[in-house]
């Protein structure tokens, strides 16, 4: 199925979850936060947060700022 990750289209397998997506992207869970369709996904929910066709996923982290 196709989803949008940080605005870019991406194909993920059936049964994909937020956790499997982060693993695929080699992103450490401790340093990121995730939104699905503009709603926060808590870290405790990563494992069971199943992705669905057309989901808009935002993965953010901290960068330099004032």
């Amino acid at each position, binding site marked *: 199925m196709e989803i949008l990750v*940080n605005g870019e289209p991406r194909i993920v397998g059936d049964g994909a979850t937020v956790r499997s997506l982060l693993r695929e992207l080699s992103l450490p869970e401790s340093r990121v936060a995730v939104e699905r369709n503009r709603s*926060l996904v808590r870290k405790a929910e990563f494992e069971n947060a199943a992705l669905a066709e057309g989901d808009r996923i935002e*993965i953010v982290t901290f960068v*330099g*700022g*004032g």
Partner: protein
Amino acid sequence: MDTPLSIGGKTFRSRLLVGTGKYPDYPTMVRALEASGAEIVTVAVRRVNLDRSKESLLDHVDLKRYTLLPNTAACYTADDAIRTCLLAREAGMSNFVKLEVIGDEKTLFPDTEALLAAAKVLVKEGFIVLPYTNDDPIMAKKLEDAGCAAVMPLAAPIGSGLGIRNPYNLKILLDAVKVPVIVDAGVGTASDAAVAMELGCDGVLMNTGIAGAKDPVTMAEAMREAVSAGRKAFRAGRIPRKLFATASSPLDGTFF
């Protein structure tokens, strides 16, 4: 002995808060943060690089040493600012946020109506809210009443380096609220930071003033000293300003 700066139940010895943006490179930033003596550092929340081609800020900021203060820079609506705070808390596991709702691209002045609305929601959600606001005492009081842990009035536009443009408003603002007042934005050089502290502000937050200096590390040290000197001068109680002279040497005992 000075009392520590107390915000949201946490105490800090340093009254200088610094940003982590705009440094020429990470090693310079690390050394500048050290030289500043700051314990609170601001960060922005942005999309991760999916290709992992760039280094991560968090590889360079010692989280045991610094309290992260995520900002909501570039948010123009209360909704975007709230989303950003929720993400920041989840990424950082701390509930401190520097709340900004920007009203205009050219000045980066705050949209205080949206700021207050966002602050009310975030306080209810359990955040320690430090709002970037203008130097309006009425709005500062409203933010305090909404439950903000501090108020952070600008001294001049963000990144402008124009210094303390309206010391009188800051004085009135200081009288209007009980929560800590931290000057946020506009400080260009050490004397600006000293003036803010001499007025009685509880702290100063800056980024460009340090990161944009020719030698950020030395400027960070200068800012640390200025904040400390300004604070001491405030606590010591300055002499009143007078138009005419008062002799420093005795008038008695002259032999001429």
